[in-house]
């Protein structure tokens, strides 16, 4: 279905203005009301909370209805709360137990019994920040709470979602501290554009520059961006809105889903609240490649007799390591013996220390929370670390009885030193394949300054990982200022509205220095950049919620948003230092400055939703949104898209007495979303070269033929779901099926260069994602002191590129250095198909070898797999016994393939255990030799192991592996100190936890490497592994104190 543009250009701003101003006078009037007496009388309410079996419930949330005043129950399930004397009711909420609201009246002691599984009333945050009862929703949504994000702390909060949310594939960036992750919800929708979800923090979309990074097979530097700038300790919850159905109201940018982050607020309380959280973990490589330790540096089973030839033979193809005295790369004679730990010894145990202190306080009129977090993370490589600071101040203020202000400011700054690059020219590439007899200690003499600044190493290439770490300086600083102010006014109990304005300013400074002597950049170079991205959103929402009759409830929301995004960038690259000892700009011979003037993008939107419920069992939702985007041509600038959904609770007809079923829900939803593009995509222009040849003015044309008739992209999605709760709410199941189709993709169609262009920009193609998601779980054991909860999720997505453009079969996303493997999106196939070379064969399927007996590579590349997993799943178990709790997560990624250039290079360099094969006596490849007359005769020529593995390592098909792996991802053993122990101390609460991540594999098909490692977080980051940093195993403690 194509989107139909509305051809009234000015409609956008007019509606915005009209709606925006309509209720502002009310706000002004409201402000005229006198501010109520701040110091009202308080009353104290006490009580205890227990479950139906009489067990005390610990940590139940209790708030005064309509305010932020609240507390939680202690270890004995009891609580004390000071409430204003006009407070009407207390709201008790507890995960898995739903919500209960109790009128206060004249009561001063309120004891509550909560029933497990009354989650029917569970409320979740949905699009535009609207809280909805989960049972009313016609689409799937998952909410993850703060304890799951901040206990087993990862610098990147999204890594804490791995294995916990169905339908979400998170590929963790393996680029060391500060690296982001690739997040794909319900499959890839776009061929070349962003495929990752929108990040919304407290209602404001944030800038996510840096979240699609890396991917180069040569030198991949994976940065972070978006969610990595958000402090995990500040997060209250993350709602995962999966795709268009849940996210339609967010419009264009939500077509890949939304991660809706709600941050912590202050609570009304007695006195000052102080909490301190300290998290110390130690990282080590989870595992390293399996090396052989029988043969050392050399070639042809020989140690060359002079240094030049020895360094030319930089692989482990020498003779057997027999301890005899042999020439060593330093020029000395050394015992020729194995150094089994030479790779392992390069790494250090890296400490990660995250400390958070939070202060909060307030009353029913005003509350505030301030938090500061410091994160110091070392990389497992020397001389590489991260240091970040995060300051957040959040305040809520009741200006009048009806008017309230909510405001927040966050400043985040992060410094990254010597972020490690991956790929064939990254540091690991010069470490992993080190000859087996080279002592890593010797490599620490990476330079002999009295002779030359050049790197010294065991190879003629001259690459030394220590030289790189000490001299390839790489510095990156991110700063983000995130703030908003929101005014909300309650006209009547059923009608309210808010206006909000928020800004996100992100500054990124990068500096990289290659000092003279670098093994392939002897003259050295320096580059620096400074970029600033800003996003301002102003929006309003009018909210109506009214019971029309006793059985019919109507909820209507109308809103508008004006989004203004800007970017600017200054950078220079210079090279060739005049005086080699000082890497500064003035000291370079060549310098190229770049300056990008302010790039602007504006999108205006109006949207609305209506929900009608009937008698608490039937729900109908309708939404609509119209966007006006500055990036599209005038005639196609405005586009509208709707969604409709139905949810029915059938249990009252099927099992009215809840004998077995507590809930049976069916739901269906259809949604459309339009999508625009980046600025400056319409006009073909001429560009002047800054360094014109010999000083001449030179102009050139874009290599892409732009189009002035681009239309918005269209994505539509159909979703059905079935949910059950049964056995007294002790068990639950949730099943979803969806099909997402994206069409009219804005794409640079590669055309033959003979047309004069590299590509024509057009709307083309159709890509679909079809999948199922299943979540089952429950509480098999609930006794006095012992509880066991279990949850299992499973999701399977299949992606198909149905059409691209006539005569174009595929789009190449990435290729290896030698071109033996390409990652593609192919028509009729999927996104991330892996194509590669195989052994060359004749018509009979016999392997063809050359005159020297060496097997050859096929001339074309064939389909060898796909980089997307077939299915993913996670199993979380939580066992609690009194104050002790144990939680562990096992997650699985099954199906899908990956090409490992690392494994190929380990074999090619004679380092791997596999390369021991054929060392003595060589092998005769079972193949045929082609004669000049075109006939084939059986091969009889023997080749050496070095020749065999040299040929073997060049073939793509030999290194495509299944990604299948199951691992113990997370482990937390926690203990909460009983209140009785603390009663005489200044502490109000304390807990301690032992935490672990990436502990071990239960199953893994590929050898040497982690199949989930990646070269980047962009579309080109999947399917190829090459000298990645090892996956890290973290072990540590978490201490939490409340004063």
């Amino acid at each position, binding site marked *: 279905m194509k989107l139909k543009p509305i051809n009234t250009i000015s409609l956008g701003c007019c509606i915005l203005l009209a709606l925006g101003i309509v209720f502002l006078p009310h706000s002004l009037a409201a*402000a*005229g009301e006198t501010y109520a007496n701040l110091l009202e009388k308080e009353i104290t309410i006490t009580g205890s909370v227990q479950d139906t079996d009489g067990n005390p419930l610990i940590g139940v949330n209790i708030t005064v209805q309509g305010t932020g005043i609240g507390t939680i129950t202690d270890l004995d399930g009891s609580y004390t709360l000071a409430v204003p004397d006009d407070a009407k009711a207390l709201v008790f909420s507890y995960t898995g137990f739903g919500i209960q609201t109790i009128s206060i009246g004249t009561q001063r002691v309120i004891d509550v019994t909560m029933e497990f599984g009354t989650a029917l009333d569970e409320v979740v945050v949905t699009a535009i920040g609207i809280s909805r009862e989960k049972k009313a929703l016609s689409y799937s949504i998952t909410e993850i709470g703060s304890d799951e994000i901040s206990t087993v702390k990862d610098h990147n909060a999204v890594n804490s979602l791995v294995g916990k949310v169905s339908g979400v594939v998170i590929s963790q960036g393996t680029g060391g501290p500060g690296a982001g992750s690739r997040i794909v919800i319900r499959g890839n929708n776009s061929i070349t554009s962003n495929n990752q979800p929108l990040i919304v923090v407290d209602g404001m979309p944030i800038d996510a520059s840096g979240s699609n990074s890396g991917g180069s097979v040569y030198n991949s530097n994976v940065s972070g961006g978006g969610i990595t700038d958000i402090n995990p300790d500040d997060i209250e919850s993350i709602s995962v809105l999966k795709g268009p159905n849940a996210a339609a109201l967010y419009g264009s940018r939500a077509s890949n889903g939304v991660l809706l982050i709600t941050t912590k607020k202050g609570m009304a309380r007695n006195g000052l609240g102080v909490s301190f959280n300290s998290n110390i973990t130690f990282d080590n490589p989870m595992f390293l490649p399996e090396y052989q330790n029988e043969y050392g540096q050399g070639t042809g089973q020989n140690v060359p007799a002079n240094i030049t*030839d020895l360094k030319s033979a930089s692989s482990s193809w020498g003779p057997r390591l027999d301890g005899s005295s042999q020439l060593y790369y330093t020029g000395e004679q050394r015992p020729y013996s194995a150094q089994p730990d030479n790779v392992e010894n390069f790494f250090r145990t890296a400490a990660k220390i995250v400390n958070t202190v939070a202060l909060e306080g307030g009353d029913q009129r005003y509350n505030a929370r301030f938090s500061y977090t410091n994160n110091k993370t070392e990389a497992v490589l020397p001389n590489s670390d991260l240091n970040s600071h995060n300051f957040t101040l959040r305040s809520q203020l009741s200006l009048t009885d009806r008017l309230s202000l909510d405001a927040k400011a966050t400043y985040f700054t992060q410094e990254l030193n010597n972020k490690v690059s991956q790929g064939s020219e990254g540091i690991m590439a010069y470490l992993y394949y080190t000859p087996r007899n080279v002592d890593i200690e010797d490599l620490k003499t990476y330079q002999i300054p009295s002779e030359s600044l050049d790197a010294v190493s065991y190879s003629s290439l001259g690459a030394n990982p220590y030289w790189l770490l000490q001299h390839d300086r790489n510095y990156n600083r991110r700063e983000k200022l995130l703030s908003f102010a929101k005014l909300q006014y309650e006209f009547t109990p059923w009608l309210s509205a808010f206006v909000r304005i928020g800004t996100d300013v992100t500054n990124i400074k990068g500096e990289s220095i290659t000092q003279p002597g670098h093994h392939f950049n002897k003259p050295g170079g320096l580059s620096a950049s400074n970029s600033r991205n800003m996003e301002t959103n102003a929006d309003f929402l009018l909210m109506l919620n009214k019971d029309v009759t006793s059985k019919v409830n109507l909820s209507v929301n109308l809103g508008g948003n004006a989004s203004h995004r800007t970017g600017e960038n200054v950078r220079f690259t210079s090279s060739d230092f005049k005086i080699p000892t000082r890497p500064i700009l003035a000291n370079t011979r060549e310098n190229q400055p770049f300056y990008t003037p302010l790039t602007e993008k504006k999108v205006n939107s109006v949207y609305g939703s209506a929900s009608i419920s009937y008698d608490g069992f039937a729900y109908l939702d309708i939404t609509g949104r119209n966007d006006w985007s500055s990036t599209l041509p005038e005639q196609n600038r405005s586009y509208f898209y709707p969604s409709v959904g139905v949810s029915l609770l059938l249990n009252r007809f099927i099992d009215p007495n809840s004998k077995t079923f507590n809930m049976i829900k069916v739901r269906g939803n259809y949604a459309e979303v339009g999508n625009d593009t980046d600025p400056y995509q*319409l006009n073909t222009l001429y560009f002047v070269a800054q360094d014109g*040849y010999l000083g001449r*003015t*030179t102009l050139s044309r874009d290599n892409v033929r732009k189009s002035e008739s681009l239309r918005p992209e269209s994505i539509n999605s159909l979703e059905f779901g079935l949910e059950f709760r049964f056995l007294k709410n002790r068990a639950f199941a949730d099943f979803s099926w969806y099909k997402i189709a994206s069409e009219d993709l804005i794409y640079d169609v590669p*055309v033959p260069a003979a047309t004069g262009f*590299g590509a024509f920009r057009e709307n083309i193609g159709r890509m679909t994602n079809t999948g199922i998601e299943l979540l089952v779980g429950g509480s098999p054991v609930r006794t006095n002191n012992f509880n066991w909860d279990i949850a299992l999720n499973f999701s399977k997505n299949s992606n198909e590129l149905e059409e691209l453009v006539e005569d174009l079969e595929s789009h190449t996303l990435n290729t290896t250095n030698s071109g033996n493997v390409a990652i593609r999106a192919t028509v009729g196939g999927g996104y991330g198909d892996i194509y590669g070379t195989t052994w060359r064969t004749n018509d009979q399927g016999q392997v063809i070898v050359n005159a020297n007996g060496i097997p050859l590579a096929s001339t074309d590349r064939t389909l060898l797999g796909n980089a997307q997993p077939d299915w993913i799943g996670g199993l979380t178990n939580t066992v609690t016994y009194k104050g002790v709790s144990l939680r562990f997560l096992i997650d699985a990624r099954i199906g899908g393939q990956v090409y490992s250039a690392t494994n190929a290079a380990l074999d090619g360099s004679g380092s791997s255990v596999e390369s021991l094969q054929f060392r003595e006596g060589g092998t005769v490849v079972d193949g045929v030799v082609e004669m000049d007359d075109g006939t084939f005769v059986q091969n009889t020529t023997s080749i050496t192991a070095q020749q065999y593995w040299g040929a073997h390592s060049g073939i793509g098909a030999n290194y495509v592996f299944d990604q299948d792996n199951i691992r113990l991802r997370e482990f937390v053993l926690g203990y909460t100190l009983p209140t009785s122990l603390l009663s005489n101390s200044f502490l109000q609460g304390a807990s301690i936890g032992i935490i672990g991540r990436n502990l071990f594999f239960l199953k893994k098909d590929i050898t040497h490497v982690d199949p989930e490692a990646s070269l980047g977080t962009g579309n080109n980051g999947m399917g190829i592994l090459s000298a990645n940093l090892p996956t890290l195993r973290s072990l540590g403690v978490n201490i939490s104190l409340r004063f």
Partner: protein
Amino acid sequence: MKKYIKFLTLLFAATFLTQCTGDFNDINVNPSGFTSDEVSGKFFLTGPQVRLYAPDRFPYWRAHLIHGDRYAGHFTFGFSGCWWSDGLGYSYSSAYTDASWGWLSGYIGGLDNYMKLVQAGGEFDNPYMHAIGTIMRGLYFQMYTDIFGMIPYSEAVDADITLPKYDDQKSIYAGIIAELDEAIATIGDAEKTGANVDDVGENDLYYGGDLQKWKKLANSLKLRMGMRALGAQGADFAESAITSALSSGVLEAEGDNCLLEKDITISQWGSATYGDVYYNFGRGSDWKVGKTLIDNLRNFDDPRLEMYADPAPGGVVTITKPDGTEAALHQKRLDFIYQTLDDAGAEYTTETVEDVTTITMAEETYYIGQPTRINGETNPYVAYEFWSKPDERVIRRKNTNEIFPEIVFTTAEAYFLRAEAAVRGLGTDDAQEMYQKGIEQSMKLWNVADADIGKFLSDSPMAQLTGSQEEMIEKIAIQRWINNYTDGFEAWAIVRDYGYPKELAEGVADFDIYAPGDINGKYPQRMRYGNQALNTNGANVNTAISVQGADQQDTKLWWAK
């Protein structure tokens, strides 16, 4: 408090007011881009002139150096300590091939943009500028088709055709010659493209806007193409192209040389030099001069020898007999090295103690070329110290001193072509005179002293065009091949066309020493098509393959059959 609310209201209203769609068109136009009404046609000529001969480092290295200069036998890799085996390029590599294809196939966009702007009815309508563009097209399509064979020509850069067909080489040659005729006729007696902004002037890096020189270049190119087509199947246009070019006038004076001066300060990612590769990687990225070239200069006392190359570094080299399977070939490989050094007249001593042989040779004394296509196992024997490297003027680093210019078309080449025409009985020139003028111009290009030129012309047997017709053709071919040093693609075409120097054209057969590559030791006849072509225009590529022959490096092109 009231003020506060008012402030927020204003802020809110202001945000929305400025957010009307009124400025949407303005903010979506890239301020870094120019439109045609701000600029002039000549600014679009310079880029295409540079990019064909001095592109950025990626194609400079992957196309020009790896394929052109090495297939020509001028440069060699694969000495001991070299990063690259000398089999590189003889075995198909999709990455290097795709880079070469990407550069040449993608080149046309910039030139075509210039042509469309200056054509009749274009924004900067100027027939003379258009004629210059047409001659550039000739240079481009000749280089492009001589590397790959059939390519899109007649349907290229047609706005209505997305998938242009591949033309056979005969039609391309005929087409270019006709285009050159048109340009020659348009130029007539005109001297400049116009006045002020209409004068291409200094934006024309080849001739500074001198149209008469462009006309000579057009005729010279026509002569080259006619000569290459001569004798090929169905090349009925060749003879008339040769004779009409000769009568209209080709490059004659030293100042007629069409050269592209090197920019010695520009970034390697704007335009590269050999030095950008040679010096960036340490000794491993050095390369050597090929044996055939050095032999042809040294054996005839050619004074260009010391202009082209440096003496071998010499010194002490140790070679150890390997264990294992390679041991059996140790003596054979050692003997191969001794033979090569002996042939070059080098004096050296050898001493063998147990398995270690030490070879000592005087430093910086002998000119010795490295044999081409050495295999990986022989690599340890081919020590760095034995071989001559290119002269500093060729491989010099940027930001230091003058670098030898890029050859577009030399006056010497025009004389050699005239000599060949005379040998074949075409035109009215004297073969010996033309041949010697060619050698003279070639030497002047390399700053050889006049006295040395005179001595060579009078004394060297190589300077005398004698013998049978075939022997004369061989000499002319070898001189053209020597003259095109640093213009590898043209030099490679000469070897393929004439089969000289024989040593190169015959390929290699002893795989104990040489690398067979994908073509069993045969001499490469073309490069394979890039994957971009198969991906975007597969059907037309396959049609071309069915006409031309398998998409392999040993499939001979139309004029080489």
